[in-house]
């Protein structure tokens, strides 16, 4: 029987230059692997590969030099340790994430939790071309949200409460966008300047600044053959239900309108930004 290379590629087996040899891409969510998974990967790379792994540019792990005849055994061995193959080709790829608010003092959202949610909902979904999600916890943007077809960035919707304020002056300097002005007995925020970074909240010594976590989305990013930074089309999103309505709208728009082999950025350019803006806007408003 002829080897079905397309099916192998869809299942994470990337054909190498060397005949009947594959680099096996593994499933990783948000750059996180358990030590049990790592031990399993190590054992498989030692036994079936060449004793090394490659870390991909999008937080993935590949085991190079897997032989065609070992593929089924490799899958079974990996499954025993909770490791499954990843995907390649025209579908939703690895969802990337930073460590987010679970560990990072700057994190406004639990980036891993959101990555897991997106993974469960979309990972491997067949589409006209590849589709990438990335989740970053805050405006520091360690995960480069705008590189992705849909990027999610954590932010904070801020609010100041006068009663707890000692007018120390820290927030005005902590704000990198110059949105905060302190007068003798009042503090004002220039909403047009505020980028929802939440630095005023984390810096405030008395808890006078309150922050409600939110999601800032970007659409149409791509950093391969052509490069385009994803664009923000919506105000900050306050809840996960709305976030998922909007990501559904974006991915469905791509599924409906993209030509085969066309990235989201090109589809949006061809159909016009207004068409996408209308769809995600409807989803945003519920």
């Amino acid at each position, binding site marked *: 029987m002829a080897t079905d290379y397309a099916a192998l590629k869809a299942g994470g087996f990337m054909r190498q230059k060397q005949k009947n040899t594959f680099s096996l891409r593994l499933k990783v969510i948000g750059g996180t692997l358990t030590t049990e998974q790592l031990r399993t990967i190590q054992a498989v790379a030692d036994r079936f590969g060449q004793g090394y792994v490659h870390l991909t540019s999008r937080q993935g792990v590949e085991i190079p030099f897997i032989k065609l005849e070992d593929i089924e055994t490799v899958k079974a061995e990996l499954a025993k340790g909770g490791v499954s193959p990843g995907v390649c080709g025209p579908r939703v790829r690895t969802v990337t994430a930073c460590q987010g608010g679970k560990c990072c*003092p700057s994190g406004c959202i639990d980036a891993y939790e959101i990555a897991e949610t997106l993974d469960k909902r979309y990972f491997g979904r067949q589409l006209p071309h590849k589709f990438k999600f990335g989740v970053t916890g805050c405006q520091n943007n360690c995960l480069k949200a705008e590189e992705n077809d849909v990027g999610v960035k954590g932010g904070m919707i801020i609010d100041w409460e006068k009663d707890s304020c*000692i007018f*120390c*002056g*820290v927030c005005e*300097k*902590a704000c*990198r966008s110059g949105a905060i002005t302190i007068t003798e007995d009042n503090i004002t925020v220039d909403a047009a300047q505020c980028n929802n970074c939440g*630095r005023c909240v*984390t*810096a*405030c*010594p008395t808890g006078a600044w309150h922050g409600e976590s939110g999601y800032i989305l970007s659409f149409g990013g791509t950093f391969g053959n052509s490069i385009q930074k994803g664009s923000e089309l919506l105000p900050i999103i306050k809840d996960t239900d709305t976030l998922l309505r909007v990501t559904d709208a974006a991915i469905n728009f791509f599924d409906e309108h993209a030509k085969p082999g066309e990235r989201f950025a090109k589809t949006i350019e061809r159909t016009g930004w207004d068409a996408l803006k209308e769809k995600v806007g409807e989803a945003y408003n519920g």
Partner: protein
Amino acid sequence: MAEFNITDTVDITDVVCPVTFVKAKVALEELDDGDILSIRMNDGEPVQNVPRSIKEEGHQILKLIHNADGTYNLIVRKVEE
């Protein structure tokens, strides 16, 4: 600065991140609970980040004073763990 009874001062304008915070932290460690430290720092990254780091260490920030020479004095009350 008559309103604060400053116990000690430290100048971190001669170092850069992350030594700014380390120097301030070491100065705080030498003080007793309730003592007040004045930390002189540069505009830009130090004044954006050092107050937050001091807060995260559990100390109490009282005031950020803008000096005539463009530097800042952060007034902090030491809080023992």
